[in-house]
């Protein structure tokens, strides 16, 4: 992480991005620590020229691992900012406030110095580096937790089933989830919604059908049924926060969460809707036609 002379913060991380909202979430973490605008944190992901170490984005680890490293780097940069500003403003660090992209002495917001101006002063091209200091308002930080943190959640669903056609309509879908400290509730909602959509596909639509010769029979979206916008209900979410003790932010993963319990939930709700003794759903994925068969068998 580097504060550039223009006052913007450049942040590079080893994780790649596949739509999770890293540019925003990581910027929020940094913006809070440095007192800058989210828009002024320029996030770079997935370019090995920009960052040398890391593994990647998977296993619901982006916020927990990269997010914690972003926070650690921001705290170090903050310390450098305070150190330099304390010298420039002739004030003790404890009296300094970082806000609005500047540092000022508490109670005197008019007489501050911008982070950009401090970055210029921290640049050794414009003056000798004082002994015992480093050039630049920058830091590199890493984070490795002892082990994974454990997120949790409860899914609930109301479905209506037409026993003649095996048509299933999801009337309500509720997710109460706990991924520890939430960085951005909107992004977390999006992760949950996407996960549930994946889960619904997995439960009732999507199945790769191989024949006895190992030939995949439905290798196109004409034949492989994906849930569409009309099949995925509005997902009502509630956030609970039980912070993880395994990272400084208390974060837990959320990327996979929405997709995991959906099959089990779907089976239970559909069984309950049909209310037939003898109907037990012990397989996933179902499909409209497979459910029809199961209903017939239980008749």
């Amino acid at each position, binding site marked *: 992480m580097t504060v550039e002379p223009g006052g913007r913060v450049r942040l590079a991380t080893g994780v790649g991005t596949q739509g999770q*909202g890293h540019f925003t979430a990581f910027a929020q973490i940094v913006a809070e620590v440095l007192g800058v605008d989210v828009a002024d944190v320029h996030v770079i992901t997935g370019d090995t020229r920009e960052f040398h170490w890391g593994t990647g984005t*998977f296993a619901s680890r982006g916020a927990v691992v990269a997010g914690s490293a972003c926070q650690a780097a921001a705290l170090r940069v903050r310390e450098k900012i305070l150190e330099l500003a304390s010298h420039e403003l002739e004030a003790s660090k404890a009296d300094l406030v970082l806000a609005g992209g500047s540092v000022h002495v508490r109670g005197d917001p008019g007489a501050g110095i911008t982070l950009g101006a401090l970055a210029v002063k921290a640049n050794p091209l414009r003056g000798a580096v004082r002994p015992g200091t480093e050039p630049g308002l920058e830091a590199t930080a890493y984070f490795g937790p002892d082990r994974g943190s454990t997120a949790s959640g409860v899914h609930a669903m109301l479905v209506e089933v037409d026993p003649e056609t095996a048509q299933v309509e999801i009337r309500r879908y509720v997710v109460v989830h706990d991924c520890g400290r939430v960085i951005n509730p909107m992004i977390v909602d999006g992760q949950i919604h996407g996960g549930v959509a994946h889960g619904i596909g997995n439960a009732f639509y999507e199945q*790769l059908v191989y024949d006895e010769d190992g030939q995949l029979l439905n290798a196109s979206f004409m034949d492989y049924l994906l849930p569409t916008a009309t099949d995925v209900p509005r997902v009502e979410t509630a956030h609970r926060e039980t912070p993880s003790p395994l990272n400084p932010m208390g974060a837990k993963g959320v990327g996979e969460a929405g997709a995991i319990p959906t099959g089990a939930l779907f089976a239970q709700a559909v069984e309950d809707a049909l209310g037939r003794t003898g109907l037990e759903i012990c397989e996933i994925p179902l499909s409209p036609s497979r459910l029809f068969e199961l209903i017939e068998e239980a008749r």
Partner: protein
Amino acid sequence: MESRRQVGERVRRTEDARLLTGRALFVDDVRLDGMLHVAFLRSQHAHARLTGVDATAARARPGVVAVYTAADLGDYWRPGPLLVPPPPIAGLVFNACTQVPLAKEKLRHVGEPMAMVVAESRYLAEDALDDIVVEAEPLPAVVDLEAALAKGAPRVHEHLPSNLAAHAVQRKGDYARAKQRAHTVIKRRFRYDRGASAAIENRAVAAQWDPRAEELTVWDTTQAPIPIRNGLAQLLGLLESQVRVVAPFVGGGFGPKIMMYYPEEVLVPWAAMKLGRPVKWTEDRQENFFATTQERGQIHDAEITLDQSGKILGVRDVFLHDTGAYDPYGLTVPINSQCTLLGPYEIPNYESEFTAVFTNKTIVTPVRGAGRQHGVFVIERLLDFAAKELGIDRAEIRRRNLLRRDQFPFNNEILFQDSAPLTYDSGDYEPALDQALELIDYHRFVREEQPRLRTAGRHVGIGIV
């Protein structure tokens, strides 16, 4: 005074303007002067002996720059790395068989690449696929998990004595003893079948070798650009600093785009260096169905034992896991299934045994959830059937078995896929259950709404897990 609170706020996504207006870079957007395009000749057979790949006619087709078969790769032909070595479970059997860049003597699943055509356009490259003459003797395919383990079954990897890829048993407490005290025992067979990750963007790789700077740049739809950089540097004999891997915007990863060292990922950069021209391959949707990893084929025979009040005494589960034709990702998926079956519940006695099986199907690696779905499905269904049998409400039987807030950190004793004992750091489950019940209005629905709808001839049901 602290800075303004940002963490926890519903800040609008700063990346969306670029994405929604089509200005974000995806791998297929990479267009470079002199760029060549690739098509792969893929196996039509699930299982066959490959006796010949003759590319003479393809090489002669105008516009074709090069055609590579396994024989043309020389020393560069080698099986991919074992990405995740299995944890040290006592008595574990694990047979590593990782994927190869181009099939040499054997075809092990439909879609496995046999030859790579590099041409001036993708059209020309695809046309040239028809010019390649393949000689293959079909073998019976290994598809069904139980049949795969039967004596005399055809073998996916003939150097192994059977199709067994792995076998592991993990225990906690003493299940057999717990069963002796049981009031209720419920046993069922559960099946979970395969699906695709179905990311909106398929895989793609583009590569450019700059001979002046002696630098290789690779644009890759990977979820793990740094491991891919390291692996390519090693394979190609370059310094890590000579290889730049860029994973720009990627249209969904969901697991199959992790650090796979897919054949295409390894061959496209190699060809770019060899030919001295930029090379690009973009997977089409049909290829994605065969050549991008999949998940979720398992069969569980599971048993739960409970006391009269619905408290779980123990669970025993024996399952088969379909790992597909190769197992580069180790045992992450079946171990996740094994561990996640324990769920948020206190299960004092647990015995779980799995056998991973090679089949003539696309490789299995984690897909969003990575095996957890199966474990959750098994335990939640067992609890549903137990609730019915014991006459206990579905939500109530769960409540009686949830871990309490004061039990964390909670050590489940068995080893997790990260090699450490499966330990839950923190949680508070019962209030979450109550909140979900309240939000969906569970009790009122069960008591009033459902009977009323039933009378009206409607089949509306509720679920809670």
